[in-house]
């Protein structure tokens, strides 16, 4: 189980990339998808994911549409053009971060 602090810092990156990959998703689906794909290591809580999605919506990075599914309404999220751009930026930013962390944590580099 990933620490909540780490997860909070990367939540937006995770959400934007899920949408970049899948096109259109709803909240519950994202929670399930993150749990499955991370082998249960990442457990997004509703209290974290929905405020984050609403913030993305207010910031114009995602569009929403309401679709009637069975007997109830479902709110789907998808990326706007600026959301797609943000997703690319976030991923490369995080990649650089991970690479720098790998350098910092690799004991071989200390020996040099």
């Amino acid at each position, binding site marked *: 189980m990933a620490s909540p602090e780490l997860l909070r810092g990367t939540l937006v990156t995770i959400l934007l990339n899920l949408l*970049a*990959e899948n096109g259109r998703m709803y909240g519950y689906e994202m929670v399930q998808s993150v749990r499955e794909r991370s082998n249960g290591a990442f457990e997004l809580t509703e209290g974290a994911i*929905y405020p984050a999605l609403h913030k993305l919506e207010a910031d114009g990075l995602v569009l929403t549409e309401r679709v009637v599914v*069975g007997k109830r309404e*479902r*709110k789907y999220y998808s990326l706007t053009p600026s959301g*797609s751009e943000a997703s690319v930026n976030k991923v490369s930013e995080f990649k650089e971060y991970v690479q720098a962390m790998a350098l910092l944590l690799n004991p071989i580099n200390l020996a040099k």
Partner: protein
Amino acid sequence: MRQLNELEIGQIEQTLRKNGVGDRTVRAELLDHVCCQVESKLAEGLNFQGALTASLQTFQVDEMKEIQASSLAVFHKKYSVMKKLSFAALITMLLICSAYWLKDEKPAASQPVLKVQDALVSLFEPPSRSPLEGDAEITSGFGMRVHPIQKIKKQHNGIDFKAATGTPVLATSAGKVVKAAFDKNYGNYVVIKHDEHYQSLYAQLSTMVVKVGDSVAKGEKIGEVGSSGLSTAPHLHYEVIKDGEYENPATYLHP
């Protein structure tokens, strides 16, 4: 999977409403979420009441109210900004947006959408350095050659570096050790998987300092040069394998 009926959905909505999730938009979204949870619990064999109780234990109404509060705050901010915009600006914005939306209808082929998998895979790179420190002499290249011991014409799947026994052998890119074993031809050898496509192999080692499952960084020591297999003198036999095919490692010695 059984879908909830209108009555059951109504009961869940009542529960949310009674507990203070008053905003219609937020409630509709959270209602769908709870319904999904309940349906998955039903599939596990619980009855409706049991499934609802279990769902509300993991997603409590306090959390729902917090979501509602933060959502209203976020959207309220947006609306007050909107009010400040003049009518003309609004129309212009709508025109621009609708142009974007129309464009968005088509599958976004031209858009550089980086997928998660690509991003993670590209954290690892193909082998891109020499497996030995400094300038080691390549004594046998890649391709057809007469095998020095078997004396027959044979494909050489890698390159040989001349080096003294005990010289450190280094991983040529980050990856996971998928093999660390002995073979009568290869001697002690290590295989590192770098990504979906690339693997590198280091043979004739005198000692191996990694085991299967270890993660290694680029430049990390994995063993020492030796002459442990079918070999005439201490050397490192090095291979680069891309999608199961042998590549010429000489082209992978530099970043």
